[in-house]
């Protein structure tokens, strides 16, 4: 199994004669996959061509990631066939798929904290010495070469846990490239990356394309789809809706195909009813995470927090919510200084936080919807510490109905809901506490266009009802479309505060990247 020594781009040197453009490298026919209670894929088809980027588009839960997992041997389809160069194949395991030349960057980064970067990249197919042992030196140098080739400055010898989200994602990309693949799948590869890294990724896609790879690109961002994809395939509710060439399609058409109806992408009209200052933060600092954070927030206002991924916005918000303890600084709510030592202090004071990592921090998977929704409000629904289930159901119904939750019953395990619906339960759980200040951290991350519009509408309604809203977001249109004012953070500090006409995309990007004022 000894591999020839590779360095840098050498793995791509093995040239593949591009097959005739009309013959797909990989195709799926009549593929179905269901989970208990969900038909994730029904009779779908998909074709990938050499040297072509195919975008897979669909709402949340349309089945995009499921098809990626089928193609990489993680899930076995219930029915249907996979053809590689026209011959039917089976991928009983992820090993089999990579042996056949299918490689993927998955939506979640699925790597190992306690292994080094090089070990992460080569796990399962490491270069070996003639004794059959892993060749540590080769593994290291080849990992370094791969990382360099994607413009990532990461030491291959450090443990993965030392890296931030974006760097982890780069390692995942390097891992996908370490397999000599003919088909490269990217499931929302840019979701966790910052501006500069996204540009490098686009370049990488171009290079792969020119090497004749067949690329499947999944994204919710239309600008990038139009920028790099050649073809598109649309799924809706686990079914195939249509495919075609990008240059022959318009954004409106694609959206129409995705959701089955027209969606206006305009942000909701806001009733701006801004009152007095309710919430002030002064001189907030933490030893390693952020320094000198100061801002104030008015009743009915939506304050946007923009920054590149990893700028420390979440850390500030989590400190405000009592998860971590700042070293200095004070919080003032309604003119009173508040000491927030724990999350329960924050909730009691009326400050709530809708976290960015829904799976880990938001939803309590394994417990039913109503127990999730009532959790921070148990003090209200219970009597003398004893549960009253009827009250819990009533409270849950009240707040989930307003968000149009889709579920089988309120007693259903939240883990069985789609991501978007889990997010609705999490938001409902916080609204039920009737907070004064609500912090939403990336509230629409990984949410499809339809649900996104609804979350926006809802935020507008909250502000109109007099809540003070903080919204952390990495999407410029969302920040500009929703906020009354924007704070830009960079490397743990406030880089700029923008309002009114100063809120332009360019100003945001410059402040976030530390480029100073436009010349």
């Amino acid at each position, binding site marked *: 199994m000894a591999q020839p020594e590779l360095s840098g781009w050498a793995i791509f040197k093995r040239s593949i004669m591009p097959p005739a453009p009309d013959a797909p490298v990989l195709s799926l026919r009549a593929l179905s996959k269901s989970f208990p209670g969900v038909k994730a894929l029904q009779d779908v088809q998909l074709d990938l061509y050499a040297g072509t980027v195919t975008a897979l588009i669909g709402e949340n839960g349309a089945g995009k990631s499921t098809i990626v997992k089928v193609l990489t041997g993680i899930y076995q389809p219930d029915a249907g066939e996979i053809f590689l160069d026209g011959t039917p194949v089976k991928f009983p395991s992820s090993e089999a798929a990579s042996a056949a030349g299918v490689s993927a960057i998955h939506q979640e980064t699925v790597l190992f904290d306690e292994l080094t970067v090089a070990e992460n990249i080569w796990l399962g197919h490491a270069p070996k010495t003639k004794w059959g042992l892993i060749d540590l030196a080769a593994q290291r140098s080849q990992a370094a070469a791969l990382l360099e080739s994607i413009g990532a400055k990461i030491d291959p010898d450090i443990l993965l846990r030392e890296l931030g989200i974006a760097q982890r994602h780069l390692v995942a990309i390097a891992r996908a490239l370490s397999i000599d693949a003919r088909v490269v799948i990217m499931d929302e590869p840019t979701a966790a990356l910052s501006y500069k890294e996204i540009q490098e990724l686009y370049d990488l896609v171009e290079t792969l394309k020119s090497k004749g790879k067949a690329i499947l690109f999944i994204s919710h961002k239309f600008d990038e789809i139009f920028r790099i994809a050649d073809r598109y395939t649309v799924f809706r509710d686990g079914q195939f809706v249509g495919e075609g060439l990008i240059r022959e399609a318009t954004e409106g058409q694609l959206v129409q195909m995705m959701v089955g109806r027209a969606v*206006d992408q305009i942000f909701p009209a806001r009733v701006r009813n801004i009152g007095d200052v309710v919430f002030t933060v002064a001189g907030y600092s933490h030893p390693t995470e952020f320094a000198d954070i100061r801002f104030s927030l008015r009743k009915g206002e939506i304050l946007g927090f923009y920054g590149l991924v990893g700028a420390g916005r979440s850390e500030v918000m989590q400190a405000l*919510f009592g998860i971590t303890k700042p070293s200095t600084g004070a919080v003032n709510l309604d003119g009173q200084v508040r000491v927030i030592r724990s999350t329960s202090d924050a909730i009691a004071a009326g400050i709530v936080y809708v976290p960015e990592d829904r799976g880990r921090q938001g939803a309590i998977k394994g417990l039913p919807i109503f127990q999730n929704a009532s959790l921070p409000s148990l003090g209200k629904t219970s009597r003398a510490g004893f549960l009253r289930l009827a009250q819990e159901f009533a409270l849950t119904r009240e707040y989930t109905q307003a968000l149009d939750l889709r579920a089988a019953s309120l007693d259903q395990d939240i883990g069985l809901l789609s991501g978007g619906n889990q997010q609705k339960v999490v938001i409902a759980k916080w609204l039920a506490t009737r907070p004064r200040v609500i912090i939403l951290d990336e509230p629409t991350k990984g949410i499809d266009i339809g649900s996104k519009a609804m979350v926006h509408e809802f935020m507008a309604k909250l502000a109109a009802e007099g809540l003070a809203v903080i919204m952390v977001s990495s999407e410029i249109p969302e920040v500009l479309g929703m906020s009354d004012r924007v704070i830009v953070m960079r490397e743990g500090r406030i880089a700029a505060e923008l309002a009114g006409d100063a809120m332009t995309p360019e100003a945001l990007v410059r402040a976030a990247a530390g480029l100073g004022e436009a010349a």
Partner: protein
Amino acid sequence: MSAPHTQNRHLPDRLQTPAMRALRSWEALLVVVFILIFTANSFASPYFLNVWNLSDATFNFTEKAMIAFAMAMLIIAGEIDLSVASIIALASTAMGLVMSAGYGVPVIVVTGIAVGLICGAINGVLVAGMNLPSIVVTIGTMSLFRGVSFIILGDQAFTGYPKEFAFFGQGYVFWVISFELFLFAITAVIFYILLHRTNFGRAVFVIGNNPVGALFSGVRVARVRFILFLLTGLMSGIAAVCLTSRLGSTRPSIATGMELEIITMVVLGGVNILGGSGSILGVVLAAFIMGMVTFGIGLLNVPGIVMSIFLGLLLIAVIAAPKLIWRK
């Protein structure tokens, strides 16, 4: 956006009625197992169906079960306490010390319970306060607590507990209901309410399913964990009072190996060893099942070690059965 069907969607509270759910539950399976074992025992030995004998048999499990209730909550919350048997040893030793110093029954009892609480608090500080993994912390305190009673007692024993003290482990409340059985019933009810009917119990389930999510939802995770260890210590202290009274003496080797029997009881009761689910009713049933199995097999004069094979097989079989049946 405005979907036309937005407002009128009605979600039912539940799809399954609680009664239906109960029928399919683990507890139902345990009831069946219990009936089978009870019937088998009645046929196997003529001595089995005798109230006094059955009453005696309850001593096989009452003390363990009282600790098992607290342990069940701890395991549901994703923690474990392997030091319970050692807490019994230390609490019993402390009771012996105050007894030798001439104090009366009330002081002896309070000492036992207080030492249990202190040991629980030590575990709680180490696990909840310092965020250490409970399985290793309690492997350590297991040696530590029993080690301290060895230091105190060495090869000696405390004997000569007052006559009235015998009530806790040998007395009867009325007719065949022993004090221990009575206490078992009371604690079962208290723990049932605590786990299934209070906010605290809800927090236990939340932490067991997702500790990070619990923290982000305003649950005082560390405090709940600490209280759980305190409760386990308390129940071990109470069990120490009963056991010491039943044996009428204290040696450092008292209750050796009991932690594994308690955990077996909890797991057999359907508590997920990985945390997140379980019920007190299940533990009560498991206590009766284990008590009846050991008593029934004991009546056939099967050597103890063979009995332990039965319990081992029972444990694996009962946990495996639903998994194997469900799979298809």
